[in-house]
């Protein structure tokens, strides 16, 4: 099941192909990075939505320019304490102009969701039963202001203060 950053649950419309599986025509599928690397030209011309499953040890600098070819990129958290995909997400969004759906897969837990949203993730592969029992959608609302600029482009506390000071000075 997927959890969206707006807090709603939905089934996953994508099929995640094993490397020996062939997609039906027009079907929404994701492929592994290995498969994409092996024959990118084969996949570029395909009709139907294409997604990519990107391992977290692929530096965006080496892959990023190709990002816009995909409708979905799934980044992986092999363990929740492995934070490489946060940087991948920031760079795919901020530097390489990826506008499609950015999804977090793997060991996704409630208390990381807000960090992920701020880094640019849209959707999360979750265990729906657990996510409902622990009210995961509430995790997106635990803070409503932040100290750092991030992919969500919310005004930082520093900039809000600065506006306040400038207003006071006028």
């Amino acid at each position, binding site marked *: 099941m997927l959890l969206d950053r707006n807090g709603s649950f939905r089934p996953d419309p994508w099929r995640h192909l094993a490397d020996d599986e062939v997609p039906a025509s027009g079907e929404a599928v994701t492929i592994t990075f290995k498969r994409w690397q092996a024959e990118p030209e084969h996949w570029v011309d395909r009709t139907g939505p294409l997604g990519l499953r990107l391992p977290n040890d692929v*530096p965006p*600098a080496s892959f990023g320019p190709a990002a816009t070819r995909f409708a979905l990129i799934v980044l992986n958290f092999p363990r*929740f*304490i*492995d*934070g*490489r995909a*946060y*940087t991948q997400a*920031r760079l795919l969004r*901020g*530097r390489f102009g990826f506008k499609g759906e950015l999804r977090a897969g793997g060991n996704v*837990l409630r*208390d*990381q969701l*807000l*960090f*992920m949203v*701020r*880094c640019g993730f849209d959707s999360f592969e979750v265990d729906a039963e*657990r996510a409902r*029992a*622990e009210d995961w959608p509430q995790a997106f609302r*635990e*803070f*409503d*202001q*932040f*100290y*750092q*600029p*991030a992919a969500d482009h919310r005004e*930082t*506390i*520093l900039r*809000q*203060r*600065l506006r306040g*000071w400038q207003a006071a000075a006028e």
Partner: protein
Amino acid sequence: MYRYDEFDRKFLEERVAQYRDQVRRRLAGQLSEDEFRSLRLMNGLYLQLHAYMLRISIPYGTLSSAQLRGLAHVARRWDKGYGHFTTRQNIQYHWIRLEDTPDILAHLATVQLHGIQTSGNSFRNITTDPFAGVAADEIEDPRPYGEIVRQWSALHPEFSFLPRKFKIVLNAASDDRAAVKIHDLGLNLRRNEKGELGFEVLVGGGLGRTPILAQTVRDFVPRREVLAYITACLRVYNQYGRRDNLFKSRVKILVQSLGIEKYRQEVEAEYAAMGAERDELDLPDDVVAAMQAQFAPPSYPDTNGDAELNQALAAEPDFARWVKYNVKPHKAVGHAIVVISLKQPGRITGDCSASQMELLAELADRLSFGEIRITHDQNMVLPHVRKAALYDLWLRLGAADLATPNIGLASDIICCPGMDYCSLATARSIPISHALATNLAKREEEIGPLQIKISGCINACGHHHVGHIGILGLEKNGAESYQITIGGSDNAQAALGGIVGPAVPAHEVAATVDRLIDTYLRFRRPGEQFPDTYRRVGLAPFKEALYVAR
């Protein structure tokens, strides 16, 4: 001192509420211990030998009297009546119950303190010179930048799950009282040839089982760009730092394996590519000025005080001795910096009782504009005391066992909690510290400045690698033994000590240290400290002294 505004207050309230819910989910069995572990660590809560340990952040080592009273209240109500000040300028409570931690953090939030990121693989407490703002040798007070970096690093969305912990230090003085080179990232405030302010950025220092001193990544990063530049430093680390081995995950190992040149190239390439993100992280002058206003010096009374001080010095030799070692020059006329030793022989290094904290809060209100500092060598500081008030202050401190005149001397030992408290330790460190302090106190004035640092395991919380004499507690075949290094230093001439010989059993440590000190005194030239003599004569005479004794 920095006071929270509505944004900071709301943020911290939200954090406490989030943590309270995390504890509730853990106690209800919704979170596994493995999942909860990283959440509690991000709030400074460790599981130790006897109980939970809670570590509270003291940003850049500065406390208000109200904050110190808040810490005393926690010690009294939820711990055994005392706290332990650490080499990170933090405080730890060692006898905490998990169920109480949300209430403790809620109480501390009312005095604008927290445990955010005092553990876990993210930014740790920002540290700096304990004499910041009052030292005569600084360019500017570094603490406004410390607060800016603290806020930027609090619950950072991209860097909360780094390969390993990440310690940032700031220094603005010509001397280094903040041990810059043993940190993951150091910021040295400086001026360029045009007189503009900026930072030298150093990366890759750290102790532990692989001690390495930080190296310069860039000589000068303009002040406005500093948050963007350190973002680039962190981003390279987050992508390329090792995660397969806990002991090879610090940024120092990445810098060592890439080499500083290659690491620098990666950082500069990332920085060059940041584009619009650099504008978002821009630090405009008016933001810095507004932050500096929060740290404006108090309005010092027009006073001299030399006459009163000289009279007391002449009349009371014990007071004169305390002034000689514990009182430091202040940049305002008629004032002094007072260092309060938490190293009275026989007590546990860094421990402070609730009543001592309350007394210090009261004395700070009366005599130091309500301000207190914590030093990385585990002492406390009243930063703005009128010279004319020093004698009264000394009397009050003495009555509370807080006037030990040993700052910078042999019995002013840095010591981790060791196996008496810590589940990582391989040997006890507190009894060794006691034995050394007792043994050396008699002749410490003759010895002069000497830094002894003791760690109870290779994680090196006691900074033994950079002690003039460093002692590392190990376990060999079920017995505690102690490896001794000499010649280390954590000041502007930072150096790692050299191993002087095979490890010795606990009962031989004091005699071994005695022989090392005898050798130093024999070879010392006027004006030299231990590391100077060591650098000049080398390891051989020290080894020989130990060999002959055997």
